[in-house]
Structures are given as structure tokens and as C-alpha cells.
């Protein structure tokens, strides 16, 4: 077989040379002809040698469809020093390897699998020291408020050196029910069978950032903050991920953890009261909480030595409002009848009924999110002794909301309030008291 091919090949070349010689003799000299003939011979003669199989069958084996090709042209080296002329078992050269309904993926090319990716972190309620790279300042509570995320979570996928265009599929399995969900491209979760269009994403799309060269990633701070949405509150989830890098190369899912990777919180509100002076931004005091105004001297505005400090935390995405109300709408005489009305006024220039009593917000802060805001000018007053009045109906004093760049959730929100009172000659002598209620309501 080989000899026949070789003879046929050089036979063709010989005939070509004869023809060229015969044509050229009428035009060129003998020497020129020799040069031309040699030139043509060199150029026509192949520089490469084809390896031909001696036998396609033997007593031991039988190759039915060898599918020998040139490797699709991809074998030419950049230097030009060599060329790959043949490759065996190239699935793309066999029209039977793929169809609209199946793909035959065995063999060497299909063995080039993507690396199995890993989950770097999966968090809902961490504080500083989070395992996630983004965010890393205050953990998940810094993204969802305290005590953590109730319908969302943050995961980060480790690409394990897969190419930047590798696609990843994230699977969540709810503990107890075993329901399987897949992360969609809108970052919600769905039980529908995953598809490349709806569920497979790059590292950039999942993590919200991919700093590798060639990723073309436009960082998305939303997904860096939390990238699993629509989770069920109070539910434990396992997280797994698989990689797809080109056709036929999808990995298995990453290992299933022994314990759930994270548990979602519930919609929550936290409120703490502390009684301390103006330097008590970090003070923690125990109940019961009493503000002592001391002895009130006529016509002198008395600011209570201690402030009311409120710690307010919530994971409400829409925010919360803290209202304040009191029992008597003023300071009430403990024996007999008499009241120092709580009025919206500047106690340095009192008006209305004799004396006055009210609250003035002093400080507001938070570790993350929020911020804690005053509700209008109810208790945020300009004058040093200007106060907002207390009523038996709740009035907003602090809030978080989602207007503008504000975040509804808040992490370690803390605010302080001064209590001020003024007595005048017309007020009855005696001891006065009141009961103030701070009521925190979420808007989930």
C-alpha cells in the first residue's frame, strides 16, 4: 500500500517535469532549462513526509473509522519550525460525535476538564473577620445589618485557575427539605433545571469582581455585597459549585460540606437602652433605666446629667423608625395634681404654659449601613435648650430609610438624647415624674 502511494506521487511529479520541459525547450536555452527544472523539482517535492499506516486492521484490532486529519490546522507552531499533521480521535472530525440530541465525549480532548471550583465563603451573619474578601470590613452584618441577612447571603467562588471565561453553576440545597435551587443570572434562586443562559455565570458575574488579566470585569458592588437573593428566612443551606470551560468539560459539583454552609436569619429588630453622660458613647448599663433631672431651680433650664443612649439594629432592607411617646405628655406631679407640659419650644425663651420639658437629640452614629437619621426636626433642634415635645401618641425620633444613598439596614447604630426641663414660679412645688417609651418598628 505504501509503495503504491509513493510510486503514484513521484509518477505525477515526473510527468509534470516532462511536460514543463517539452514546453520550455522552444523558449529557453538548455542551461536555463536545467535551472528551471531543478527549481520546479525542489518546489514541488514535499518538505514533509506523511506517515501512512501500514495496516488499518490486524488480527488483534480493527479500526473502523480512523478519522485521521490534520488537527484542524491548529497544529502549526508559532515559530514555523514544525507542523502537526495528524491527530487521532479528534471528536470534531467525526460527524457522528455530536448531534442535536447527544454528544460523544470520551477520548483525550474530552479529558481536559475544568478544575473543580471551590466556595471561599458563604455567610449571612458574620461580623469583622469575615472569610469573604468582599466585603471584609464588617462581615455580613456590615452588609445586611444586625443580626445578619434574612433573605440574602454572600458567597465567593474560587476559580481554581480555570480560564477567565469559565462559567460556573451554583447550587443551593436547603437543609431539612433537601430542595435544590440554582443561582440565576439575576442572583435569585430557582428550582428550574439550570441552563447556560439562565444560570451559568463567570467569576465576575458571581463574585462581582474578577481582577485577573483579560476578565474584562466591570466590578459590581451589589454582588460584592450579597449575591444570593430570595432566600427563605431561618433556613440552613448547603452550597456547591461546578465549572464549565468549553463544551464537554463540565466538572462535578464541589464537595458537599458536612454541615450547612450558612443559615439565614429572620427579620429582626434590636434595641438597647443605656443611661450615661455625654462621654458614654460606648457605655453599657443595665436596667432599670432612669433619668434623674435632679432638683429643678426656677427659671434655670436643667439638662439631665445623663443622656439616654439607644443602640438600634435591624436587617430591614426598607428601614426602621424609632418612635417616642410618654405617659403624661409632660412631667407629672407625683402627689396632687400638677404638670409641667412638654412643649415644642426653646426653653431659654419659654412660651405657652409655665415651664417646659422635652427631648433634644444629641449624637448619631453607626458602624455600617444606615445611617441613623433624625425624623425631620421633631427632636433635632438648633438652640442649645430647644426641645421637641413628648406626647402620648408616638412621634418619630430616629429612622433609617432607603431614600437616596441611605440603607435601610443598620449595623451598630447608636444615638443619644438629652432630657431637658424648666420650672417656673407658676409650677407647683413637688416631685415630678414621667415614663418615656422608645418604640422601634421595622418596615420590612
Amino acid at each position, binding site marked *: 500500500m505504501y509503495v503504491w502511494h509513493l510510486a503514484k506521487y513521484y509518477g505525477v511529479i515526473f510527468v509534470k517535469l516532462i511536460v514543463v520541459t517539452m514546453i520550455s525547450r522552444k523558449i529557453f536555452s538548455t542551461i536555463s532549462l536545467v535551472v528551471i527544472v531543478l527549481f520546479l523539482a525542489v518546489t514541488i517535492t514535499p518538505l514533509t513526509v506523511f506517515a501512512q499506516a501500514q495496516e488499518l486492521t490486524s488480527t488483534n484490532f480493527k479500526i473502523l473509522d480512523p478519522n485521521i486529519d490534520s488537527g484542524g490546522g491548529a497544529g502549526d507552531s508559532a515559530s514555523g519550525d514544525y507542523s502537526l499533521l495528524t491527530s487521532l480521535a479528534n471528536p470534531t472530525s467525526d460527524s457522528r460525535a455530536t448531534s442535536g440530541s447527544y454528544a460523544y465525549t470520551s477520548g483525550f480532548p474530552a479529558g481536559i476538564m475544568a478544575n473543580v471550583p471551590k466556595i471561599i465563603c458563604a455567610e449571612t451573619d458574620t461580623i469583622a473577620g469575615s472569610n469573604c474578601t468582599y466585603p471584609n470590613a464588617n462581615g455580613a452584618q456590615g452588609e445586611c445589618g444586625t*443580626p445578619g441577612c434574612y433573605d440574602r447571603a454572600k458567597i465567593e467562588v474560587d476559580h481554581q485557575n480555570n480560564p477567565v471565561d469559565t462559567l460556573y453553576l451554583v447550587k443551593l440545597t436547603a437543609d431539612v427539605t433537601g430542595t435544590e435551587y440554582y443561582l440565576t443570572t439575576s442572583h435569585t434562586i430557582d428550582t428550574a433545571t439550570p441552563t447556560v443562559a439562565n444560570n451559568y455565570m463567570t467569576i465576575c458575574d458571581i463574585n462581582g469582581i474578577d481582577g485577573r488579566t483579560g476578565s474584562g470585569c466591570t466590578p459590581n458592588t451589589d454582588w460584592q455585597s450579597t449575591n444570593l437573593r430570595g432566600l427563605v428566612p431561618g433556613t440552613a443551606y448547603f452550597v456547591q459549585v461546578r465549572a464549565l470551560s468549553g463544551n464537554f468539560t463540565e466538572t462535578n459539583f464541589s464537595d458537599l460540606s458536612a454541615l450547612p454552609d450558612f443559615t439565614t436569619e429572620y427579620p429582626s429588630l434590636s434595641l438597647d437602652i443605656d443611661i450615661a453622660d455625654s462621654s458614654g458613647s460606648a457605655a453599657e448599663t443595665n436596667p432599670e433605666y432612669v433619668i434623674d433631672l435632679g432638683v429643678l431651680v426656677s427659671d434655670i433650664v436643667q439638662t439631665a446629667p445623663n443622656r439616654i443612649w439607644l443602640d438600634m439594629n435591624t436587617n430591614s432592607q426598607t428601614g426602621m423608625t424609632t418612635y417616642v411617646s410618654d405617659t403624661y405628655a409632660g412631667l407629672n406631679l407625683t402627689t396632687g395634681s400638677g404638670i409641667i407640659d412638654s412643649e415644642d419650644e426653646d426653653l431659654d425663651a419659654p412660651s405657652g404654659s409655665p415651664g417646659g420639658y422635652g427631648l433634644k437629640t444629641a449624637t448619631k452614629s453607626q458602624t455600617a449601613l444606615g445611617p441613623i437619621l433624625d425624623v425631620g426636626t421633631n427632636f433635632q433642634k438648633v438652640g442649645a435648650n430647644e426641645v421637641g415635645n413628648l406626647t402620648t401618641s408616638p412621634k418619630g425620633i430616629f429612622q433609617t430609610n432607603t431614600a437616596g444613598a441611605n440603607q435601610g439596614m443598620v449595623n451598630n447604630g447608636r444615638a443619644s438624647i438629652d432630657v431637658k426641663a424648666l420650672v417656673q414660679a407658676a409650677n407647683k412645688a413637688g416631685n415630678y415624674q414621667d415614663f418615656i417609651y422608645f418604640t422601634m418598628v421595622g418596615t*420590612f
Partner: protein
Amino acid sequence: MDTKRLPNSTGVTITPAFTNVALNGSYDLVITNNGKSPVKVRLDAALFTASKSEPQLILIKSTDVTQSELNKRVSFSQSELTLEAGKSETVKVTYKQQTSGFFSGALVTVNGDLITQLNGKDQQVGINGQLASVIVETKLQIGDIPKIITRLQVQPVLGIGDVNLGSEVNLMTEILNGTEDKILTPSGRILGVSNNGQLVIGQQTLTDKLDGKIYPLQSKEVNSTISDTRPFWQRIGNTQYLQEVQLNGEKFYTQRTVFNIPWEIALGVLVIVGIIVVGTLLSKVFNQRRK
């Protein structure tokens, strides 16, 4: 992987602060004392109303309804308890009676009775903290339906009025919650359908864009674009855009029709007209020269 950590602050935490419970249903309210000393807690039934200006629930103190009347609407497995430091207690809350126009809930008062705290000397103010757990009944009643309005506007990206010369249309969805005591959880989609109701150009999912809730007397607007990828000869004529919005389990439909003249045809007509115009002009020029 997720290391469970306590909230940073002390004080008292309640969960859930917001829950969907049907009438006669119940839920577990968990009250946690994060502080370092025991606290007394009292539970009361409460009513809340929605703010008309912003998504906000307001605690109301009704002079018309006594606390004993309120307690008929919501009941608790225990209404007073002492929480040791770092401990949680679970109270079963039962939603027994609806109050039209209001949301019911539980008011958790920390150190509820302060009368004994004050010693009657000087001027003293007792400070209480309260945390609200609000029940939101999501099921819409018949009377709620007319108060909910869903709108759909369809505007061709390239077109004149309702005539679409291109293959894309801008869609504007608006949902108005006119109820006073229902918080709507929306989801929805917009389908492009032919006259016989057959889906012809896929659908635009609204659910992700409607993320969040619609509070009483609030509205939400969503803008999106849908692309008709059919061959141009199939795009000729009317296409109906059917909006399906699901609000608390109830479906609301709105339909709009757009007449399509595919740009391929519009361009072809333009070319023919151009050839006629140019041809006419050239013939006139030649005729002028001949004269």
C-alpha cells in the same frame, strides 16, 4: 463555614419583626436578651397604620379601642416573662381578629412596669424600650381588588405613536396599591402574543425588577424593553403585549397592542421611494439638457 456570632449590641432582639400570617394563624416570636443582666418583658397587642407619605408603619394608640379590646385581636402564650442574660424565650402569637385598615401585631416592652422604679424623689423619668412584631395578612379580600391598579404602557423605541418601525418596544409597568392594610408582594411578566393568543416573542420577566414590597398607598414603576426577534415578515401587523402581574396570589392582566412595520420593509420602501425620486430628478435633468 459561616461562623455564628452574636449581634454586636446588647439589649433585646425580637424575631420575626415582620411576618405573614393568615387570620387564626400563629407564629413563634423569639425574644432574646443580649445583655448581661435579666430583663422583664411584657407583651401587648398593638395596631399599626401605614404612612401615606413613605413606606413606614406607625404604631397607633387608639383612644377608641382599649387594650383589652386589642388583646382580643392578638393573643400570646405568655404575656409577661423574665429573660435571663444571654437567653431566649419563645412566645406563641396567635392572630385572632382582623381590624380593617390596620395591621395588628405584638408590642414587646422591655421593663414594662416602671412605677416601682421611681422613688418619688426629685424629678425622674423612667425609660422603656419597645419592639414591634407586625403581622401582615397578605390575602387580598374582594374589596381590595378595585383598589389595586396595574398599568402597562408600550412605546416603540423606533416608531410613531403606536406604530413600531423597529423590533424593540419600551414597556412601562405601574402598580398602585390603593389598599390601607395590605402590603403587596409583586411578581410578573409581560408576554408578546399574536392575535390568537399564541406566545410569539418570548416574555419579559418583571419579578426581579419588582424586587421588594409595595406598601399601602404606594406605587411602583418598572421600565423594561422587549425585543421582537422574529423574521421581519412575521413581525408585520399587530402584536399584543399581555402583562400578567401577580400580587399576593391574585393575578392582574393588562393588554396593549402595537402595529408593527418592520424596519426592513420601511427601509425597502424608503429605498424604492429614493430611487423614484432620484430617477425622476435625473430624467428631468437629462430632459432639460436635451432641450
